[in-house]
C-alpha cells in the first residue's frame, strides 16, 4: 500500500459534511462566552486585591493563606462591580498597580497575587505535603486552552520517587452532582473525602505512545458539592512538554512516554486534589 493509496483511501472516506445553518454566528457566540468567562475571572482577581488591600486574609480550611495577607493596610472602599470589570479589563495582572507606599504596607514580594499564582502556590504546598521530595521542573505552565471550558489549569513536568512524568491540575465550576456514573463509564472508583468531598479516581491509559511505551495516567477529580467546585489532578508518564514561546500557548505533553507508572501514586494524587479543593476559590 503506497502513500498515495493511503491518501486516496483516507480522503475518499470523508463523508459529506453539511455546514450548520450559521457557523459564523455560532463561532462568534462561543468567542463572546469565552470573553465573559475571562472577564469574570479577572474581576474576581480584582476583588482579591481589594480584599487584600482591606487587610483580609483569604484562607482555605486549615488556615493556609490564599490571598494576600496585608495586616497593616487601611481599608479601601469597595468599587462597584462595573468598576471592577472596567479596571480589570484594562490591566494585566503583572501591571496591576501597587498600593501607594505612603498609605499602604507593601505586600510581601512572595505573596501570591493572581488566581494563577495562588493556584500555583497551593499546588507546590500540596505537593510537598503529599510527596516529600517531589520536584516540579519549573513554574506551572498555565494553559489558555483550559479557559474554553471555564477552567483554570496548568501543566508541568514532575519528578518523584525516581520517576519523571507530567502533572496537570485544573479547577472549574461544575453542577456539584458529578459522580463516577456521570463522568466516566468504567474503571472509576468513587469515595468520600474527610470534608464530605466526592472523590472520583481512575487509572487511565492514554492513546498516545512512543516507542511502544504506553502513556499511563492517574486521574483524580474531587468535587465539593456545596461550592459546585471540581478540581482535577492528572499525573502521567510523559516526560516532554511542547515548548511554545508563550506559556499560555497550548502547553501540552508531547512525546517521551516512559511506559512506567506515573511519578505519583493514586493516594498522592488524591491527597493533592483534596488539598487543592479545600483551598481553591474560583470566581
Amino acid at each position, binding site marked *: *500500500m*503506497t*502513500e498515495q*493509496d*493511503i*491518501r486516496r*483511501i*483516507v*480522503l*475518499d*472516506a*470523508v*463523508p459529506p*459534511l453539511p*455546514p*450548520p445553518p450559521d*457557523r*459564523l454566528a*455560532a*463561532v*462568534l457566540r*462561543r*468567542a463572546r462566552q*469565552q*470573553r465573559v468567562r475571562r472577564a469574570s475571572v479577572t474581576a474576581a482577581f480584582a476583588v482579591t486585591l481589594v480584599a487584600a488591600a482591606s487587610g483580609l486574609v483569604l484562607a482555605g480550611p486549615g488556615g493556609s493563606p490564599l490571598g494576600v495577607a496585608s495586616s497593616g493596610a487601611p481599608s479601601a472602599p469597595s468599587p462597584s462591580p462595573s468598576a471592577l470589570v472596567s479596571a480589570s479589563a484594562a490591566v494585566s495582572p503583572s501591571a496591576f498597580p501597587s498600593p501607594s507606599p505612603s498609605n499602604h504596607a507593601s505586600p510581601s514580594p512572595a505573596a501570591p497575587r493572581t488566581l494563577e499564582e495562588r493556584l500555583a502556590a497551593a499546588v507546590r504546598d500540596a505537593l510537598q505535603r503529599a510527596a516529600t521530595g517531589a520536584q516540579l521542573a519549573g513554574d506551572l505552565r498555565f*494553559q489558555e*486552552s*483550559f479557559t*474554553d*471550558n471555564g*477552567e483554570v*489549569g496548568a*501543566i508541568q513536568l514532575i519528578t518523584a520517587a525516581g520517576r519523571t512524568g507530567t502533572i*496537570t491540575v*485544573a479547577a472549574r465550576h461544575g453542577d456539584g452532582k458529578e459522580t463516577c456514573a456521570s*463522568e*466516566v*463509564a468504567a474503571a472509576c472508583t468513587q469515595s468520600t473525602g474527610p470534608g464530605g468531598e466526592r472523590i472520583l479516581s481512575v487509572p*487511565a*491509559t*492514554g*492513546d*498516545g*505512545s512512543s516507542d511502544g511505551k504506553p502513556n499511563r*495516567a492517574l*486521574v483524580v477529580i474531587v468535587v465539593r458539592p456545596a461550592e459546585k467546585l471540581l478540581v482535577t489532578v*492528572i499525573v502521567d508518564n510523559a516526560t516532554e512538554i*511542547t*515548548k*511554545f514561546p508563550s506559556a499560555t500557548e*497550548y502547553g*501540552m505533553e*508531547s*512525546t517521551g512516554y516512559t511506559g512506567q507508572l506515573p511519578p505519583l501514586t493514586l493516594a498522592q494524587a488524591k491527597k493533592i486534589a483534596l488539598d487543592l479543593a479545600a483551598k481553591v476559590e474560583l470566581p
Partner: protein
Amino acid sequence: MAPPDLERGFAEFVAARSDALLRSAWLLTGDAGRAEDLLQTALAKAWRRWSAVERADSPEAYVRRVVFTTYVSWWRRRWRAETPSGQLPERPSQGDLASAVAARDAVTRALGRLSRRARAVVVLRYVEDRPVAEVAELLGSTPGAVKVLASRALAALRADPDLLSLVPEGAPA
C-alpha cells in the same frame, strides 16, 4: 464590538476555508459533530486575535495549527471521552452506500488506533501533503520526531486489516 471590517474579513475567511478545515477536523475526530465542535473552537480562538491573525502571512495556517493543537490537547480536558472499544470491526458489505459507510468506518477505526499525535501527523503529512518541517512547526515538535512518528504510523496503517480490506485485490500491499 468589533470593527465591521474586521468581522467582515473573519466572515469571509469562515465562509471560504471552513470546508477544508472541517475535512481535517473530521479526519482527526472521525465524527461530524465533534469535527464541527473542533472547528468552531479553533475559529473562536482565532477570532479573539483576528486583528493580528489577519495580518499574518497565512491566517489559515494559524487556524489550522489551532485545530491540530486543540485536538491533541483535548484528551486532557475531555479525557472521559476516551472510550476504548473491544468491538471487532465489521467487514465491508455489498452495495454502494453500504460500502461507502463501511469504508468510512474502516478508515475511522484505522486512524483511531493511532495515537492522537500520530493521527495528526498522518493527516498533515500524507493527506494534506505538508512538508515535515511544517508539520513539526504545527505540532510544536521536531522534524526528526515527526519523521519517526510518520514512519511508524504509515507502517501501522499499511498493516491495518481494516485498510487492507479497502485495497483492490492484486494491488501491492
